[in-house]
């Protein structure tokens, strides 16, 4: 291998570069692909109405669970309405709600819109403890001027559907 540089130092440097380059290319390529493809956006219902994510595209829907909107079906399905000040979305979820799910409190549903506009959740996250609010929900609600401090139950008047 006469084309290799003669000095051992330069040789080692070349070997190192030869080893790092493919790994770096792999890592960068995968990362770019991953970040363009497998991230999910967070929307409140009014933001979702504006952005119109494609049906089936995985997103996170966050807002307040509208008081009195929770319907629990005997087959294990749950329906509830997630709302912000301007809009609301109906969410269906097959499974057990998180232990800290409450009406009138913040929630994040992970899933996708169906073609009929109903949001089908794969997972529902509520607060992990009573002093915690999903951050995006808090921020989005503050921006809309609807923030009552945590622990207080807002008298929520979402638009009728």
């Amino acid at each position, binding site marked *: 291998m006469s084309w290799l540089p003669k000095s051992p130092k330069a040789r080692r440097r070349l070997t190192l570069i*030869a*080893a790092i380059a493919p790994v770096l290319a*792999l*890592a960068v390529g995968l990362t770019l692909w991953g970040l363009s493809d497998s991230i999910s956006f967070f929307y409140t219902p009014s933001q979702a109405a504006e952005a119109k994510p494609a049906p089936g595209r995985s997103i996170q829907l966050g807002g307040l669970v509208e008081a009195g909107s929770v319907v629990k079906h*005997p087959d*294990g399905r749950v329906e509830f309405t997630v709302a912000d000040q301007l809009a609301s979305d109906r969410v269906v979820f097959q499974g*057990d709600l998180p232990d*800290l799910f409450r009406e009138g409190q913040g929630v994040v549903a992970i899933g996708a819109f169906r073609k009929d506009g109903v949001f089908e959740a794969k997972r529902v996250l509520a607060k992990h403890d*009573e002093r915690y609010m999903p951050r995006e929900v808090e921020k989005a609600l503050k921006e809309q001027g609807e923030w009552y401090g945590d622990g207080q139950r807002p008298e929520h008047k979402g638009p009728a559907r």
Partner: protein
Amino acid sequence: MIAEIGAFALMMALALSVVQTALSAAARIRRSSVLAGAGEGAALGAFLGVAVAFAALMHAFVTSDFSVANVAANSHSEKPLLYRVAGTWGSHEGSMLLWCLALTGFGAAAAGLGRGLPRGLRAVTVATQGMLGVVFLAYTVFASNPLVRLAQPPVEGRSLNPLLQDPALAFHPPALYAGYVGMSVVFSLAVAALVEGRVDAAWARWVRPWALAAWSALTLGITLGAFWAYYELGWGGWWFWDPVENASFMPWLIATALLHSAVVTEKRGALPGWTVFLALAAFTFSMLGAFLVRSGVLTSVHAFAVDPTRGVLLLIILGVTAGLGFALFAWRAPSLQQGGVFAPISRESALVLNNILLAAATATVLLGTLFPLIREAADGEAISVGPPYFNLTFTPLMAALLILLPAGPLLAWKRGDARGVLQRLWAAALIAVGAGLATLALVSPHKALGAAGVMLGVWLIAGALAEILERVRAFRVPAAESWRRLWGLPRGAWGMTLAHLGLGVFVLGAVFETTWKVEAAEALPVGGSLDVGAYHVALDSIRPVEGPNYEAERAGVTVTRKGEVVCRAEPERRLYTAGGQTTSEVGLCYRGSSHIYLVLGERREGAQGPIWLVRAYWNPWATLIFLGPVIMALGGLISLSDRRLRLGVGKAARETEA
């Protein structure tokens, strides 16, 4: 009164840390052993101070002294003793105190056990450790003091989050913090080495026991956390690529890389700069983890109560500490002596490749964890990066690492023989391919990716065993001779083999569980049943249960297979009366290393009386997921007990040098 003593002791510890830093730095400048001894005494004093403060807080928790604000906010008199003790570190303030306890404890240990180190290196190490102590103790005393009294104490406390009232979580933070903060000694040693301009084989040998101890504790801590998430959250999973989980995983990846690169520096004197860089990075990632978890800048399913102002302070601490460390590195590293050269195919190259892959993997995890922040700062979009991203980026890099792993230990230093290594590994490769094909043929549904994962896991295990057989020259010398050699192997070798074997066990478990998990959920009345995989789950009874601080509904569930009773389990749904929260207690049936995982949901009113949502999972080989890391940590501890690594050895070596 006792809380006041604790608060005073904490202030004393802060003062002593300042003294420790000043005296040790002065000792280095004046080359005075008297000052150095005084600095080490101050390090011990600081540790005692924090220990007294910690004991005082624990006393307040155990006796339910609700005049202490932290106790009132996080405890309850009806809580069982174990969780009142664990409540000491269950909150932000208490866990910061635990962090300081570990930090000063490691500082005192470094001062006390570092007798074999050269004086200058030791003084700078103690000074740096003291500086870290000053920063974190000042933060604890002034920004999150757990021993503050309330003017009007409540009659009853607000109780610890019930999800945290769990044996695994009681011990998860101490193990995790021992790991996080153990990296601080490595950090201090790195700073000292840069100040002294000395990064050589002896230095790497001093770093290794600290890195090993911290790595082992971190491994155990993360495993306990994953196990807790598995059976306490009731989601059927054990790892969610959540920011808080990533925060603990990144220091682990860096520490793993450090352990491997330190070997190269120790044996061959090569890569000194890179090893020092990793030593600085490991504790930087620990601090980054503390910041991410406590500041609440990232949305996490595990977040505990957060406070943005504290986050800013922690960010400043992180920035200043890591900034100074890396600035010192940038200034001094170019003058470090480069060690021995090595051929492209050699043990050194294998370890370099290990480090490249681990560093790349850490970078992808870091980017994925911080990307929501970057994106929000860039265009205001709120996004989240979930498991698909990490599966796509992290898994292939790790797979590449695992494929190459068994070859590494068999390569010779300096110049290796690729063909010889392949000859020694062909049996392991054959077993792995056989296991993969058998999996593809026998396990239904047939999944090629799962079979490939099984092949990888078996490859690691067989590779580790092949390496041991190679060391004892099995089948080439008489069995008795092999046996004698087996017992004569250094513990460091056993440690490495166990760690690699444990990784293989983990891979097997993780692949099986994620690929062939079966899930079923149905709303059942008492007497109803559902099928999960080959098993039949019947809900026999529901009865109310009165716990010490909760009320529960406990289900009697019978699991049968082909008409035969396999096991009975009792999943529970608890209502903690103090905070009004409900939690699920998972019912687990062990079938060999596989689990039948049962979750009792809430009561609903059906058409014919009440029904309960029952979720059942068949988690094949799930025990291996937790057993593997335990084997790895055990390997670390065995390696730690190796005589060559005992701290006195450095001294002996130095005396012979002189």
